[in-house]
Every structure is written in structure tokens, then in C-alpha cells.
């Protein structure tokens, strides 16, 4: 094989996996009789921001949990930053982070104490400076010495985001990052995520029900339904394919089994 042949040939699975931030290959998760995730495969390039869309029970959270190593797949494989999960998780957990409505920060600890604990868990150097930077960036200064349990929902979300960014992760997994936030705070969080991604060339995988959020932030969308990938493309391409002008309309079409606005069973 010549050098030219090699350059023009498509990359192998192994090459794609090692260069990708996340590579998911034929992933399946079965809980007793429920097939929560059903043979999905995708690969996210580094520096990309991808939205994982789907209704309740579509398998988004389980997929993210398997990528993080919190849930073991029934079959299939996951590679994160070139390492197999969960077997090689020790090599990557310090380079990634996450935010999820399924976990909380300890309520009795102050914001500063929480960030100090997590900063030490992630072996962050110059931790005081890092906390000060995050406090300034995420507007935490006014309540940094207040117990987490005494904060409003919006303040808690910003603290959770500060925890997720404490180690300046190369990969950020976000499950409903703006759920239960007012529009102003939600917009503010999205702007911060955009800035963070650009400044750090970070990869972000975002599970959300908020279509406007996905349209604004994501350069790629993966739509899941009943554990399977229904579609996977740029937001524009998906909207064009469904002949729709918003992702929300596409989402409703997918959820209700319609193609171009027509019920599939009626066609």
C-alpha cells in the first residue's frame, strides 16, 4: 500500500476510536426485560458539541451513564478519549466531568468547601485561583460561602456547572443542564458553555429536552427513541429531511412516528 493509498482509505474503527472524544460501538443495555439502549453506535470528534435528543425513556441518560462508566453495558463497547470504559476509567476520569439532575452537591457544605473537595479529588493545581476564576466566570462570588442547600435552583445549577468545570475537562457530559432554570439563567448557562467549548476546544455531549437549546448550541444532533438512534446529523440537515423549520417539530414527528407530518401508520 502506498502512502497515497493510505491517505485516501477510510480510517479503521480503531483509528476513529482513538482520535474521537467518544466512540460508542453497538452498545446495548438491558434491565431485566427492558431494552433501555438497543445497539447504538456513534463517534464524536474532539471539540464538537452534540445534542442527544429523545423523549422520556428514550435511553439518553443510560447512554450517558454508560459513557461515564456509572452503568455497565450488557454488550458493546465505549471508548472515551482513546480509553476503554470502564476498564481504563482511571486514565480518563480526571480529564472529563459531568453535570446531571440525578446527583446533587452536598447540601451542608458551602460552595467554596464543595469546590475545594472536588478540586482536590481532581488534583487541580492552584486550586484557590481556579475557584476564584470559576466564581468570577459563573457569578458565584456573592454566595460562595453559603451552604449549597440554601441556594436557589439557578444558583445550584451554576455551582454544579462550576464543579463540572473545576478540572477544565476535555470532555463534558451534561444531562439536562438547564432544566428547571428560568429563561434568563438558562441562556446565561448556554453562553458560558459556548465560551468554554471555544476557549478549551472541549467536547460536549448534551442530553436535553430543550430543542431551542440544542439548535443554538449543537453542531450535531442524535435523536433517540426507545433505545435506538432514529437520526444523526446536523440540526439543519435533520430539519430539512423532515421538512420542518424547528427541531421541536422534528422531535414531535419522531415521538409520534410521523414522517413529513404524516402519521406513519396512516401512510
Amino acid at each position, binding site marked *: 500500500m502506498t502512502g497515497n493509498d493510505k491517505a485516501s482509505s477510510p480510517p479503521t474503527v480503531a483509528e476513529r476510536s482513538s482520535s474521537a472524544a467518544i466512540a460508542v460501538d453497538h452498545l446495548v443495555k438491558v*434491565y431485566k426485560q427492558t431494552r433501555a439502549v438497543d445497539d447504538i453506535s456513534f463517534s464524536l470528534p474532539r471539540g464538537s458539541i452534540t445534542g442527544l435528543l429523545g423523549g422520556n425513556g428514550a435511553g439518553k*441518560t*443510560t447512554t450517558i*451513564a454508560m459513557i*461515564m*462508566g*456509572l*452503568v*455497565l453495558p450488557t454488550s458493546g463497547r465505549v471508548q472515551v478519549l482513546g480509553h476503554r470504559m*470502564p476498564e481504563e476509567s*482511571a*486514565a480518563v*476520569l*480526571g*480529564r472529563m*466531568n*459531568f453535570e*446531571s439532575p*440525578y*446527583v*446533587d*452537591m*452536598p*447540601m*451542608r*457544605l*458551602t460552595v467554596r*468547601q464543595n469546590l*475545594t*473537595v*472536588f*478540586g*482536590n*479529588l*481532581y*488534583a*487541580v*493545581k492552584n486550586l484557590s485561583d481556579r475557584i476564584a476564576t470559576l466564581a468570577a466566570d459563573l457569578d458565584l462570588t456573592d454566595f460562595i460561602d453559603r*451552604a449549597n442547600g440554601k441556594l436557589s435552583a439557578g444558583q445550584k445549577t451554576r455551582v454544579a456547572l462550576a*464543579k463540572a468545570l473545576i*478540572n*477544565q475537562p476535555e470532555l463534558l457530559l451534561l444531562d439536562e443542564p438547564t432544566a428547571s432554570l428560568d429563561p434568563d439563567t438558562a441562556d446565561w448557562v448556554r453562553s458560558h458553555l459556548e465560551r468554554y467549548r471555544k476557549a478549551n476546544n472541549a467536547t460536549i455531549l448534551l442530553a436535553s429536552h430543550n430543542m431551542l437549546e440544542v439548535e443554538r448550541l449543537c453542531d450535531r444532533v442524535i435523536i433517540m427513541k426507545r433505545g435506538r438512534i432514529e437520526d444523526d446529523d446536523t440540526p439543519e440537515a435533520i430539519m430539512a429531511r423532515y421538512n420542518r423549520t424547528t427541531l421541536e417539530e422534528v422531535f414531535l414527528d419522531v415521538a409520534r412516528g410521523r414522517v413529513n407530518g404524516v402519521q406513519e401508520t396512516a401512510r
Partner: protein
Amino acid sequence: MNQASLHRGISLQRIGAMILRYWYLLLSSWPRLLELLYWPALQVITWGFLQLYIAQNANFFARAGGTLIGAVILWDILFRGQLGFSISFLEEMWARNLGNLMMSPLKPIEFLLSLMIMSLIRLAIGVIPMTLLALFLFHFNVYALGLPLIALFCNLIFTSWSVGIFVSGLVLRNGLGAESIVWTLMFGIMPLACVYYPVSVLPVWLQYVAWTLPPTYVFEGMRALLIENAFRTDLMLSALAINAVLLVASFGAFLALLRSARKQGSLLSGGE
């Protein structure tokens, strides 16, 4: 960020971070601190007066001064050691913080080591005042046992950690619905550990079961010290050997239960 330390060996920084987390929690909550002191003090007062009463009316107990109150203090080391371990673990479940920890570079062994150190800290807060109370009220000086006290203490704390590790694994796997096991499991072994009476009191067949438990050796050893003034190294070494097996087995069980929790997805739910 120190990438190298994230995946090589045990990190003292991460263990320190977890201890800091529990220390912040203790300092932020006076009921938690009070609870550490309240029950051991109540125990030693109740049993101390009972010992006084019995000693005044029974010749044997007059000679065997301190066996009851000594047993209460040592039992509290065993029970409180396990509770100190398990409550720190439960704090993560109650706070819904376990997912954050499991997703961080913290390794299971580091998590368990931090819980062990916290059990010692919580024990010191509760049991040291208890021993001083016993000295002040009943003139029972547990520290007069000298170096043998270290052997008794180490064996009890090793058993408490083994039980703590195992029940934490059960809660991890089964959620907070299994929380009651944390509070009751140690009481299940109390009759067989022969805390307040010698092993010879038990039926012969039950004695064989009792001798499989390290605390049985410790309480027999304590009675030998207080009544015969003899330090039974044979008992302490036997207890140590069984404790070594229990610690390895409980750690193995914890890892198996953690794996099962990952399979079942219970690290995400953590509920009932």
C-alpha cells in the same frame, strides 16, 4: 492538573479530600457532633451504675471489677467504629453525591480508606470522653490496661471496618432500602461475641460459631486481663488472623456489589 497521580497508585490527596468533606460536614452540624457524644456517655453511665450495684452484692463481681464497664467501652469501640464508617458512607447516599464521587478519579480503595479514617475520628470524638467519664464517675481507667489495650482496640476496629465495608456494599447495591442493616447487623453478632459473659456460657455447639468471630476473642481477652491479670496473646493473634480474612473478604464483596450496582444502574438512582 496532575495527570500522573490520577491513575497511578493510591492518592493521599484524594483521601484527604474525602476526609475534608466529612470534616466540613461534622463542623457544620452540631446535632451530628452531639450524637457522637450522647449515646456512648449514656451507655457508660447506665452500665457503670449497674456494675456498682452488682459489685456491692456479688463477691465475684467485686473481684472482677470493671468487666461490665470495660465490656461496654469495648463494645462501643466495635459498634461505633462500624457506625462511624457506615454513616459517613450513608451521608453520600443521603446527599445524592455518590454519582459525583464515582465519576471522579476517586478509587474504591481510596473511598474506603477515607471512611476508615473517618471512623477513627468519629470514634475518638465519642469514645475518649466516654472513657474519661468512666474514670471520673466509676474510677475505671481503661488506659490502665496498657499496651494490651492496643491489641484489643485494633482487633475491634478491624472487625468494625469489615462489617462497615460489607454493609456499605449492600446499601450501594440495594439503595437506601437496605439502610436498616447498617444499624442492626452488629447487634446480630452481639450474643455470639460474648460481650458481657464468657463463651463457656453458650451451648457447646454454639461456642464453635462464637469462635469464628474476632470480637469473641477480644472480650475473652479483656476478661482475662481484668480478672486474671493475664494478657492472652494467643487470643489476640487468632482474632487478628480472622480479621485479616474478613477484611479481604469484605473488600472483595464490596467490589462485587459495586459491579452489580453498575450493572443494575443503582448508582444513578440510589433511592429505595
